[in-house]
């Protein structure tokens, strides 16, 4: 800070930059407003337009306010950058000599972040602050989060209409965005933890939104616990960093070892103990593995699809999973120094390895999914792998740029999937059963999907190309050849599985729910007079469609809810909210209803509240890449966002090396373009022959050829990671503990009560039972007995008697104290 002040004197600031904390506060206020008064607000009807009630508009309004504030912040940040006259981006193909000189000077060109810091509390000599830290990275992510959240909330107005927990959904969604914004704004690690945990809580609430279904609440718990495993790493990492960086940070005027600038300066200073920084980086990275769904903790992400689609979309594009990548990017010097990234002769580091593994395994899993949202989920995992790998090979700017572009097209893809299920396949997400041939019925959704898919695959001139290719190119440039090949392979696989998903959803013949009422346009099964009897009749086809052999873990098999929503839909057409009124309306105008209701027969395009966000996102998926199109020597994004030349802080002592940046050449991009084309061609050919009508030798190939069947099974069971976690690790730990408790209960407690006489006999029995029967036989019988013993073993110790628990507690404490005393003497 002291050193930076000279440079800061010439930089422009502004109201938005100084008051950036409002961006995170507004959603917080929105959250409380929704909770406090949301339920009392009813829908308002204005002519044929329904203004949704339930407090949802508070959510939309607060997110829109945040968006405006974030846009103002972004604008003023760009002004600030311009006022410094910095153009480091031109180091592409037109690297001019002037820029080269400016870069060489380094410090003069460093744009100081706008930091506002307030003391939160003091405890034990440490000062905890809360505040805002605006630099290029936080500016762009703030804008992204606020933008995507606003669109997702607008989309949810329609998607969640009539849901029983409509108000709570919006409250959680708003707080979720608020948590992410808090974390992005943070100027210290404590605030990052705060936002991080708020997101963890909200993701739990949102994934388990339809908790009546056991599968959903299970998925929510799984997400929560898996991320929690990683969160331990966050706490440990922050503590390690705090205790090692505190004295440095205090000495140099950064407040404390929690301060982000202090940490970055410490990591770059070269005075940091390598052991501390290494283990701090590893611990923090474990947290990022959990949050960002990296291998091996990625298993929660696909299960998180159990939440409503807007949640998946928000979770997977701009919040939650991005948090982990953001944390790495935020305190990149720690990882850069700690994990020896870009050090000559090191071809591997933890981040790149984890990222690389994630790219490949997640992409492979995407091939065997039948649920469209799960394909997208694994695709997200794989793309997050790209971001991590990018950070791991020193490609900081491309990785952050990939966060930026990925958010748009992935959000768009999820919302397209939601649109398909909302209007095309009766709330089913099963591609093989309920979709197919939807491209003509849902032209807007289809167009948006295609644009986003092209962006995701990295087709040239779409946004994904400019970010993903930069990562791959930089991996090669920085000498990480293994990861270059992995990146190329990932690009191939991405194209192939997205082609498969696109084919199954939009091409071929309509199947299942997508085929309902499809060809015989005007439902002969729907005699309007049936509607008189009960509204349930009117919604019968919907329910049937939703239930149609569906095994998804989404809400398709919640007939009550599907019905409620469909009744709402029917009612809505008539400009009515009340389902009873709808019945009368049907009475009043049978013909009108019959005509209108045909709209709901079979797949159709979604209403404007859904398609407008789609179109906006698809447009951005197409054009957002041009902010940093290296191919055309556009480096706006680099100018605005990236710390100069990989230098995160004005030099204090010895600075670490600058990040290498690859210059774009079409020759370098050629392999990935070719692979994208190859991926498309191979996958399209295979898809048509497998899923098409014609008889083909490829049909059922996984059933006929044994190695392929094994491979399929292996993938289908997600590498058996879930089995490993739940069956082996959890049970492996729980069983010995419970067995020990059981032994203690049976032999010690009962033994004392029953007296010494029985004790002798019991111990004899125990030796027989435990040593002879258990140990000897047990070893022979192996794991079968272990699993069986688990349940019965834990039971007796859980007697439910408070006194017994007390006795256990105190005697354990006494024994532990005794052991401590004896050990210490």
């Amino acid at each position, binding site marked *: 800070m002291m050193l930076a002040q000279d440079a800061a004197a010439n930089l422009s600031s502004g109201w938005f930059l100084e008051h950036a904390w409002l961006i995170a506060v507004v959603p917080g206020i929105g959250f409380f407003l929704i909770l406090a008064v949301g339920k009392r607000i009813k829908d308002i009807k204005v002519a044929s337009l329904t203004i949704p009630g339930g407090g949802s508009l508070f959510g939309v309004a607060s997110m829109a306010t945040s968006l405006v504030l974030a846009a103002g912040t972004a604008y003023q940040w760009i002004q600030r950058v311009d006022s410094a006259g910095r153009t480091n981006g031109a180091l592409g193909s037109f690297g001019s000599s002037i820029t080269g000189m400016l870069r060489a000077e380094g410090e003069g060109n460093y744009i100081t972040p706008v930091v506002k810091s307030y003391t939160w509390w003091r405890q034990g000599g440490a000062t905890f602050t809360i505040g805002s830290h605006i630099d290029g990275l936080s500016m762009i992510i703030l804008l992204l989060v606020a933008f995507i959240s606003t669109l997702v909330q607008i989309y949810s107005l329609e998607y969640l209409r009539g849901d029983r927990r409509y108000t709570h959904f919006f409250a959680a969604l708003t707080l979720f965005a608020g948590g992410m914004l808090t974390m992005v704004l943070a100027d210290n690690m404590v605030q990052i933890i705060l936002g991080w945990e708020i997101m963890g809580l909200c993701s739990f609430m949102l994934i388990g939104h339809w908790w009546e279904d056991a599968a959903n609440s299970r998925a929510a718990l799984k997400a929560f616990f898996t991320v929690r495993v990683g969160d331990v790493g966050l706490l440990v990492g922050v503590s390690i960093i705090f205790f090692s960086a505190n004295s440095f940070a205090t000495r140099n005027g950064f407040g404390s070892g929690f301060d982000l600038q202090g940490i970055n300066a410490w990591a770059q200073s070269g005075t940091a103990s390598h052991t501390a920084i290494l283990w701090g980086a590893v611990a923090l990275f474990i947290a990022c593995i959990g949050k960002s769904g990296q291998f091996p903790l990625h298993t929660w992400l696909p299960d998180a699809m159990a939440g409503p689609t807007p949640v998946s979309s928000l979770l997977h594009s701009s919040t939650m999973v991005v948090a982990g990548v953001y944390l790495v990017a935020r305190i990149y010097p720690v990882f850069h120094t700690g994990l020896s990234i870009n050090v000559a002769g090191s071809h591997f580091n933890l981040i790149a390895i984890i990222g690389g593994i994630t790219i490949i395994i997640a992409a492979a899993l995407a091939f065997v999914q039948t649920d469209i949202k799960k394909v997208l989920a694994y695709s997200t995992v794989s793309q997050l792998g790209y971001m991590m790998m990018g950070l791991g090979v020193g490609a900081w700017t491309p990785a952050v740029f990939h966060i930026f572009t990925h958010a748009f097209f992935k959000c768009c893809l999820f919302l397209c999937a939601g649109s398909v299920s909302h209007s095309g396949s009766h709330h089913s997400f099963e591609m093989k059963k309920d979709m197919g041939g939807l491209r003509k019925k849902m032209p807007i959704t289809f167009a948006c999907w295609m644009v986003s898919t092209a962006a995701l695959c990295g087709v040239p001139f779409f946004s994904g190309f400019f970010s993903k290719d930069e990562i791959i190119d930089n991996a090669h440039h920085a000498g990480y050849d293994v990861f270059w090949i992995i990146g190329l392979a990932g690009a191939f696989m991405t194209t192939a599985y997205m082609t498969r998903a696109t084919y199954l959803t939009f091409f071929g013949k309509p199947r299942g729910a997508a085929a309902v009422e499809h060809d015989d346009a005007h439902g002969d099964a729907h005699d309007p007079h049936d509607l008189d009897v009960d509204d349930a009749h009117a919604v019968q086809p919907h329910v049937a469609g939703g239930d149609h052999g569906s095994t998804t873990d989404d809400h398709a098999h919640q007939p009550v809810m599907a019905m409620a929503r469909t009744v709402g839909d029917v009612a809505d057409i008539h400009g009515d909210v009340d389902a009873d009124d709808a019945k009368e309306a049907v009475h009043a105008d049978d013909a009108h209803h019959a005509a209108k209701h045909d709209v709901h027969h079979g797949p159709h395009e979604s209403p404007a509240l859904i398609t407008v966000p789609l179109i906006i996102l698809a447009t951005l998926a197409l054009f957002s890449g041009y902010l940093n199109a290296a191919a055309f020597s556009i480096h706006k994004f680099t100018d605005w966002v990236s710390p100069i030349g990989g230098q995160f802080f004005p030099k204090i002592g010895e600075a670490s090396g600058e990040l290498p940046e690859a210059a774009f050449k079409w020759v370098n991009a050629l392999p990935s373009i070719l692979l994208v084309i190859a991926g498309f061609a191979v996958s399209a050919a295979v898809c048509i022959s497998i899923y098409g009508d014609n008889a083909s030798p490829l049909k059922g190939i996984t059933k006929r050829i044994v190695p392929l069947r094994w491979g399929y099974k292996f993938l289908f069971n997600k590498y058996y990671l879930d089995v490993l976690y739940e069956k082996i690790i959890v049970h492996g730990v729980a069983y010995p503990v419970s067995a020990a408790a059981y032994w203690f209960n049976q032999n010690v407690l009962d033994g004392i009560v029953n007296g010494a006489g029985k004790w002798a006999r019991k111990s004899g029995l125990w030796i027989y039972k435990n040593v002879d029967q258990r140990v000897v036989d047990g070893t022979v019988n192996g794991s079968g007995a272990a699993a069986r013993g688990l349940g019965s073993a*834990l*039971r*007796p*110790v*859980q*007697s*439910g*008697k*408070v*006194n017994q628990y*007390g*006795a256990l507690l*105190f005697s354990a404490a006494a024994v532990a104290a005794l052991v401590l005393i004896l050990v210490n003497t």
Partner: protein
Amino acid sequence: MLISEFLLLGAVLFCIGVYGVIVRKNAVLVLMSIELILNSVNINLLAFSLKYNDISGQTFALYIIAVAAAEVGVGLALVLLIYRNKRNISLDELSEMKG
């Protein structure tokens, strides 16, 4: 005065309290035993406060008194609720948590 006199008094009270928690069946009496335990802790805190001439011990003794009051309030409310539902406050009949 020796510090160990006070500490031993605290230890004796603590153990009597532990005995009460284990042996008593009546919920109100269990709560009383817990009060014994809390008071023994207070004696220790004040003894150390005097020994090391540090006011912190007294501060936390006060905090413990406040927490104990809250604990008794909630505990007795629970006992009352249990009594209303079961017409009995014997802890051994409350074994719904049995595994």
